[in-house]
């Protein structure tokens, strides 16, 4: 392997995807599907069924944001993975959650994390939170040809913005459209159910604890009525991923704490 060096006019700068293209690797190979006939339906029981990741959500609280996602990936009517991680830290002060075709989604998360760190190292300083959201938007747009074939990927991006001193969150559509949400957002197959819970329960400046409890409850209700969303897997000890991001950074809620939140919810359901 030789060191990649470029002439001044040919330098890919601080963009890692551009660097990959320069050395002949297409970071979004699924975009080459352009022009091929046929549509791959990654959600239903068709000929080609691909793993699909579902419900994720994010909400703001006093001092930051909480992100959460269930652990299930489905292939048509089958469960393909019980412990997938769809909510991950993007860097010190932000996180990304992703729904859609699992393979492309995981690859996009990896590339996004890499790009943020790469930019920081090449430029000597981090991107602003808005800049990071914009970067993710461009990656989603690069994937649009694949999305039109049914291999869509839609993320949530959330983090603490030191420039304004509060948590901010964005959701995206498959065209790369980027929408900043004020209070909360949910994506994926169970999103309608989860966002109803959030809409009813969310209050301005709720505490971190209340936000975590609300996120856990929203995922519970989504999993209760949507088969593609996984609930807490008590049998195997697999719980949703719930994490908060504030000025101190990413803080994932321990499984023990989630177990006790879900205990309470289950007791409530039993006594109905």
């Amino acid at each position, binding site marked *: *392997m*030789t*060191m*990649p*060096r470029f002439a001044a006019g040919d330098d890919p700068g601080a963009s*890692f995807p551009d*660097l990959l293209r320069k050395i002949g690797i297409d970071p979004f190979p699924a975009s080459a599907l352009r022009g091929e006939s046929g549509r791959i339906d990654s959600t239903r029981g068709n000929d080609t069924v691909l793993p699909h990741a579902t419900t994720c959500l994010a909400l703001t609280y006093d001092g930051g944001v909480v992100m959460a996602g269930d652990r299930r990936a489905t292939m048509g009517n089958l469960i393909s993975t019980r412990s997938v991680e769809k909510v991950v830290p993007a860097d010190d002060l932000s996180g990304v959650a992703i729904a859609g075709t699992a393979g492309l989604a995981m690859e996009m998360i990896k590339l996004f994390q*890499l790009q943020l760190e790469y930019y920081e*190292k090449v430029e000597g300083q981090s991107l602003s939170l808005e800049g990071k959201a914009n970067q993710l938007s461009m990656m989603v747009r690069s994937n649009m040809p694949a999305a039109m074939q049914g291999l869509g990927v839609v993320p949530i991006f959330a983090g603490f913005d030191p420039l304004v001193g509060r948590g901010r969150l964005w959701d995206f559509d498959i065209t790369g459209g980027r929408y900043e949400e004020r209070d909360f957002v949910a994506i994926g197959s169970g999103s309608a159910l989860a966002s109803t819970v959030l809409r009813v329960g969310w209050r301005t400046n709720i505490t971190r604890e209340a936000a975590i409890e609300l996120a856990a409850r929203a995922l519970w209700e989504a999993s209760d009525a949507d088969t593609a969303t996984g609930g807490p897997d008590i049998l195997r000890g697999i719980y949703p991923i719930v994490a908060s991001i504030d000025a101190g950074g990413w803080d994932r809620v321990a499984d023990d704490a989630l177990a006790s939140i879900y205990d309470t919810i289950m007791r409530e359901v039993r006594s109905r």
Partner: protein
Amino acid sequence: MSMPFYVSPEQMMKDRADYARKGIARGRALVALQTPSCIVIVAENPSTTLRKVSEIYDRIAFAGVGKYNEFDQLRVAGVRAAELRGYQYSRNDVDARSLANQYAQVLGDVFATSGPKPLEVELLVAEVGDTPERDRLFHILYDGTLLDEKRFCVLGGDAEGISKRLESTYRADLDLATAVKVAVAALSGPDRTVAAADLEIATLVRNGRRRSFTRITDDAVAAALR
């Protein structure tokens, strides 16, 4: 037809080496020290934005002396080489030895054949290990000579004098604050003092976290030197 003057290869290499050495000697020096808790890199650098020491990868740091634009381009090339390798294989497959070899290849190539002039830089590629025995300090000279150093490493002008001072003051069991003092004393010599604001200090911390590179702020430097 004009005849070019004959210059013997020995003379040409000597001229190029002199040119590079002069350029490097004009700049300020830097030192890297192994300690039980980290590798500490101390550079004399009045600028707070044009860095001499920077992060390449999880456990690997880069430092350069000489012409800033030349070693900064090499720094970015190193970040790219490391990130591409990590992306294509795994983060564990990125190591300082391979990077140092690539740097040596580039510098050697420019020195001997391809460049109109040699690069006026000396580089350090440092990698922190789980134990000090697994640390790596690779020192790359302007002509591509690659040195594998132990304990400490000195780059830049007056390297010999600084090495001599370090030889008598360096110990393997230094804590960070003392190591900084020892390094600064060696850099400044007996006749002058260097202000905290004119120092750039970074460490590769041996704590098992993914990104081990940490910069030390001017205030912390001033406190350590007190």
